């Protein structure tokens, strides 16, 4: 079973995403910002990361740059999940190595569709 790290400073969004992911039979763990997520990845690298953009301490883009610079056998799939929906932001995320991009608000259909696109379900 795949493991997804949910990174979002909103407890409500984390809870909602975790419920949706569990419904799709994906195990979950969580972090409140990019710094917490990095610590998590250093001890146990997840298969998938659902990543918010705007967070305190270390934001989503900062985290992604550091993650992609890590020397690991297998890089996780990263899905941005954010209210940032401008074309330039999305293009920048792809350029930094995001595998998929979810524009909030989202529902289980959208999440499942994006997970299928990265072969996670």
């Amino acid at each position, binding site marked *: 079973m795949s493991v997804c790290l949910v990174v979002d400073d909103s407890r409500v969004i984390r809870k909602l995403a975790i419920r949706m992911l569990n419904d799709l039979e994906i195990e979950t763990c969580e972090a409140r910002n990019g710094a917490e997520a990095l610590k998590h990845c250093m001890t146990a690298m997840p298969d998938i990361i659902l990543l918010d953009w705007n967070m305190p301490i270390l934001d989503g883009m900062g985290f992604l740059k550091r993650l992609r610079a890590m020397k690991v056998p297998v890089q996780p799939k990263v899905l941005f999940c954010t209210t940032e929906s401008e074309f330039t932001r999305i293009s920048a995320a792809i350029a930094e190595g995001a595998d998929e991009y979810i*524009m909030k608000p989202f529902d289980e259909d959208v999440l499942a569709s994006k997970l299928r*696109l990265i072969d996670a379900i």
Partner: protein
Amino acid sequence: MESQDFIFLAGLLKTQSGLALTMDKTYLLNSRLQPVAEQYGLKTISELIARMRATLTPQLRQDVVEAMTTNETSFFRDVKPFEHLKDHVLPELLERRKQRRQLRILCAAASSGQEPYSIAMLMAEQSARLAGWNVEILGIDLDTRILKRAEEGVYSQFEVQRGLPVQMMVKYFDERPNQTWAIKPQIRKMVRYRQCNLLHPFADLGQFDIIFCRNVLIYFDHPTKRDVLDRLDGQLARDGFLFLGGAETVIDVTQRFVSSLHRGAYTPRPATETVRAVA
């Protein structure tokens, strides 16, 4: 709903759209026809049916039929058919048509355009192989309002996130106000749309190399399925391919098609046998 009203509506939908309405779908009538009743200044569906019985204008008939039509769709729906198209069907047809360098593709339930535009994007991704080729994609649908949406090619944030890889979204869509996304003109221009009822003759559409007729037949009864499939066979090149929906098949419906080597597609049955299809 009174049973005679149900019979009246079921009969109308069957003759106009082929939709086989059963009693367990009564809830659909309520949810979809109430807005039509209100549009005509009527309070209830019973009043709407009374109006239809009294004076069934072509516009009212069309509004009711279109309201009952299911337009569920998404980009690259079910994924596999598009992979088969790209990896197997297209290379095969490019080889067979290398002299004529022309491909005609029909989407026989274009809805709001996601399927024909998915095919158009797939073709655009193959632009190097298709240089000098004339690729025509025709989308047809019964519903004129949904075809207008398809022609516009503007989609909500939810719609562009269902089935469409983000890399393709940024490549083939332009950001628009109010969290909408418009398909780029170069892709939009690859698709033509035309109102067409599959129950009526459609021989004038000409012959196609590939026909997508997905998630339409499921709404038809058995004789209507056979009739539509047999007439689609008449519009398909003898070495062409027919794609049906995941829950649809030709088995026990018609002998005109056989499963192709590519899963989910059918080809016309060779003349030496009797007919053919792709699955």
